[in-house]
């Protein structure tokens, strides 16, 4: 009997994997991902061979500190997986429109759910498994096959992260309802991911306290510190190194938890999902009803765009996360500003201006290219230029609001740098916004993460011009007259990208 017999668990799992793979990116993007992964796999295999040679025949007894380091690493990996499973669970359980179809089919609901849950677990761990296999296979070939146990440990973490992610998502659903669950889960997932990044950057902005932490870690590994391992803390590394009992206990434990959650949530989920798909809005309180109407194309379009931006929390959070990732930079900037470090301060100002351009570019893509009803706008007598102007402002206003506090603080601490950074940020945002406007391509808000609709040349141009404005800001903050040169280049390049309304419309029509 074929493993892929229609209706079987494996057949449905293959379907899930195919859908997940196709939703990941465009065909071209998938090919690039596949090539990149293969290259990475080969590189990792190259790393694996010398390690394999070094550990061959060795009887390794890791120090307690090494156990702790691995525990910490696995905890971080688990958190990362959890962020993925949270987003995936919200998407797969409450957003995918195919559940109606699956539940209306003769397939047992339990099969559908098991497969969907397994898909989430697989999605969370597959990348790490592939990459790890790149290192472990050569090590195994060189004579240490027991280290393949690490794959079992990572798979266990994937199962565990999926179980916790599913539980959290279900609890969120009970507390918040379907729509908010999706949003909160996505935001939570992104915040967890960003927190890991911030943790890795903590040394940049925590100062002396963090140095003590680093010293402590260094002590641990140099053997200067006395470490007493908590109970079972040595289990993960022993499992990684292929000791049968720890490995089997970890895998069996994770599988047990996963199956238990599967059983526990199965029935409840079928009810929740039906609620999410069917009467999603019925329990929702009516929103605020507009009082006076805006008058005119500009005001109406601006109001509409700002409303849409503020209501798409998941999308906005993705934009805001870009700011979160730049927090270490802001800390450096403010620390140096208060300590009077002359060179680092202009560097920070330059970075803020580049950041403003990136933010504006993202927002203008949402307001301009990801228009939900382009035909409505074209069918209206409203001037194209007025609509575009309103959309540009709708992107620039949130950019200004997001940067107002850091720039205000900077201006308060170091007035000249603050003013220059503000000017640089304004120039960068305006330039990126206008280029986004001139080179708009119809897209979909759901594509925001990959911005697949933006031509790569436009992205390069925005980066290049942003970089030039960054250099100009740096030099101006450093009080160098040379700042005028990159500023002029940035202005010239921006103007070179300009397209008339007629040309934009022509391009849009050709693509329609």
């Amino acid at each position, binding site marked *: 009997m074929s493993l892929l017999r229609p209706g079987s668990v494996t057949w449905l799992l293959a379907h899930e994997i195919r859908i997940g793979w196709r939703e990941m990116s465009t065909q071209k993007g998938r090919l690039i991902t596949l090539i990149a992964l293969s290259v990475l796999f080969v590189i990792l295999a190259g790393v694996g061979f010398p390690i394999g040679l070094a550990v061959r025949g060795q009887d390794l007894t890791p120090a307690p500190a090494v156990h702790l380091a691995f525990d910490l690493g696995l905890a971080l990996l688990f958190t990362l997986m959890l962020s993925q499973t949270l987003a995936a669970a919200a998407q797969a359980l409450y957003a995918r429109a195919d559940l109606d179809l699956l539940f209306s089919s003769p397939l047992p609901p339990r099969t559908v759910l098991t497969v969907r849950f397994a898909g989430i677990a697989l999605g969370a761990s597959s990348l790490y498994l592939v990459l790890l296999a790149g290192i472990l296979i050569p090590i195994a070939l060189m004579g240490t096959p027991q280290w393949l146990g690490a794959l079992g440990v990572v798979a266990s973490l994937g199962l565990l992260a999926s179980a916790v992610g599913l539980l959290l998502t279900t609890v969120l659903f009970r507390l918040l309802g379907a729509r908010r669950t999706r949003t909160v889960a996505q935001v939570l997932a992104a915040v967890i991911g960003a927190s890991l990044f911030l943790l890795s950057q903590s040394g940049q902005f925590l100062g002396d306290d963090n140095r003590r932490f680093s010293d402590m870690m260094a002590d641990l590994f140099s053997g200067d510190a006395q470490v007493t391992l908590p109970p079972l803390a040595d289990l993960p590394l022993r499992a990684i190194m292929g000791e049968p009992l720890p490995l089997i206990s970890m895998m069996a434990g994770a599988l047990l938890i996963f199956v238990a959650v599967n059983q526990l949530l199965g029935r409840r989920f079928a009810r929740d999902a039906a609620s999410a798909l069917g009467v*999603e*809005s019925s329990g*929702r309180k009516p*929103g605020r009803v507009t009082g006076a109407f805006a*008058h005119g194309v500009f*005001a109406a379009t601006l109001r509409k765009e700002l409303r849409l931006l503020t209501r798409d929390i998941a999308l906005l959070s993705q934009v805001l996360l870009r700011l979160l990732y730049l927090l270490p930079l802001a800390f450096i900037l403010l620390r140096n500003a208060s300590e009077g470090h002359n060179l680092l301060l202009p560097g920070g100002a330059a970075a803020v201006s580049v950041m403003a351009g990136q933010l504006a570019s993202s927002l203008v893509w949402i307001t301009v290219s990801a228009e939900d*009803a382009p035909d409505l706008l074209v*069918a209206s*007598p409203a*001037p194209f230029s007025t609509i575009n102007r309103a959309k540009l402002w709708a992107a620039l206003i949130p950019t200004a609001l997001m940067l107002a506090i850091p720039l205000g603080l900077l201006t308060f601490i170091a007035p000249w740098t603050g003013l220059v950074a503000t000017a640089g940020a304004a120039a960068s945002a305006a330039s990126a916004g206008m280029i986004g406007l001139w080179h708009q391509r119809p897209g979909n808000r759901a594509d925001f993460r990959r911005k697949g609709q933006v031509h790569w040349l436009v992205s390069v141009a925005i980066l290049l011009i942003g970089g030039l404005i960054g250099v100009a800001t740096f030099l101006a903050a450093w009080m160098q007259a040379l700042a005028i040169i990159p500023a002029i280049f940035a202005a010239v390049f921006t103007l070179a990208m300009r397209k008339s309304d007629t040309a934009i419309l022509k391009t849009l029509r050709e693509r329609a």
Partner: protein
Amino acid sequence: MTDALRVTGLTKAFGDKRAVDGLDLTVRPGELYALLGPNGAGKTTTLRMVAGLLAPTSGEISVFGIDAIRDPSAAKQVIAWAPDEPMLYDRLNPMEYLEFVAGLWGVDGKTARARAEELLRWLDLWEQRGQRCEGFSRGMKQKTALAAALIHEPRLLMLDEPLTGLDAAMARQVKDVLQQKVAAGATVILTTHILEVAERMADRIGIIQGGKLKAEGSLEDLQAMAGGGRRTLEDLFLQLTGERVDL
């Protein structure tokens, strides 16, 4: 009297394929005109060109005497276009959506507010005025889009399959609205596959096939054209378009 819509030699080619092929069409002011045709006949393409969404390959379009190709903005001012898939924003509520559309057509805020209330009450959407469109049924979305199409009081209202997916009550409501608009002097062009609707509502019917007008006139005109007798529009349509029904 100036025609509401006069289309002359209108052609739209997509590569080698001519979706609309030298179409001549005239719609008089104040009439309800049903544009019928098999799938792919060129109905939607024609209406999209009139609405200014597609540039014609050749031909002329005149809306109440305004050259819609030379002066699309002036033509659009008097047109409303409602496609088969409602052009809504999921995250706006009907009032906000109507505010936006009114803004696009330059209706002043106060008038737009009053009209929005009137339209939403008329279409039984007033209770849902504060709810976002994302949770609306197909029919509610269709009615919201219709309200938006009417907010600037267009002289020419073009609707592509306005009754698709509506239940009997909603379909009746939409038909009533259209008839009242026609009674008030507006011109309505609609495409539909529900031939009984065209038979009962339309003053004149145009049958388009292969991008060309095959027949046009009142039901009686079409019956005469097909050799007389009291035949249904469905029979006439199948005969005139040469579509076969194999049972």
